[in-house]
């Protein structure tokens, strides 16, 4: 079993940072719901509060790692221009997609949307984490602030979902390939 270096980095970007970012939303929304429940939330102890802060900071780090790894590691490989006369577009994903009307939309709509909307997620979630950490249980007393935090958390989830969906579909149609092979032990045929 083996994968190329570019495939490995793309997997870390999408299935590592991106997927974990989406997964951690459930915990954030649960905590927001707890903080904002009627009658006020029971105050968290020091240990639980520290865990919540680490969780929220990890969410932000995942979001920023996802967009930076996407923009500065994977995207340059995706948009690379093939030398003149190249017929095998396997290592030039954007050109491969645009070479057929059946797949051009994955770039013209999918990538063009994903490459920008993805950045909304870490900006929004950094604000959400900042407010949740700064205000803690006091957030239950700020109804309008809670509304904004919920709204921006939902927007971050939406933006990350769009980026994740198109990332997966684009990589299915024209995977980013190339680089040194990485051999994964244990996958050899008998």
């Amino acid at each position, binding site marked *: 079993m083996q994968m190329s270096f570019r495939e490995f980095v793309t997997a870390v970007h999408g299935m590592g940072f991106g997927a974990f970012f989406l997964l951690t939303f459930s915990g954030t929304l649960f905590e927001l719901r707890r903080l904002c429940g009627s009658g006020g939330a029971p105050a968290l102890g020091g240990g639980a509060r520290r865990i919540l802060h680490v969780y929220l900071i990890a969410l932000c780090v995942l979001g920023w790692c996802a967009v930076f790894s996407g923009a500065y590691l994977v995207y340059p490989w995706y948009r690379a221009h093939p030398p003149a006369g190249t017929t095998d577009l396997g290592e030039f994903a954007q050109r491969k997609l645009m070479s057929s009307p059946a797949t051009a939309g994955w770039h013209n709509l999918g990538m063009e949307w994903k490459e920008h909307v993805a950045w909304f997620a870490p900006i929004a979630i950094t604000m959400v984490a900042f407010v949740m950490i700064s205000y803690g249980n006091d957030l239950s007393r700020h109804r309008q602030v809670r509304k*904004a935090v919920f709204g921006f958390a939902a927007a971050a989830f939406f933006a990350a979902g769009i980026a994740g969906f198109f990332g997966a579909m684009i990589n299915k149609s024209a995977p980013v390939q190339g680089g040194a092979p990485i051999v994964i032990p244990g996958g050899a045929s008998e």
Partner: protein
Amino acid sequence: MKNPAAETEGAPEAQIPNGGAAAAILSAGFGCFSIGICAWLGDAYAPLARFFDFYNPTGPLSGVTTSAILIWLVLWIILSKAWSRKSLPMGMINLSAFLLLGLGMLLVFPPFGDFLQGK
């Protein structure tokens, strides 16, 4: 006098003024709008696309996002210094932040951006 920050539903008045949150919320909305407007301008005008080409392998996306992040962070710092000890009317700030977020979302949606450019 009632503290306007205490938008409560029968709960005691808020301990922390809402100014810090207001600064974070409005600047986040403006940061999202900045991504939208920078992306749209870069797409519509070739000289701006060249300006945003901060890192050639990534292309204009590098400048669009770097500029938007800088705008967001600088605005957040300025608003935080001005508002952190204040209690502000959050309704107007939320409305502005969500309008900016929505406009940003629209501007990065390719069919809408193309429509504005008359493509």
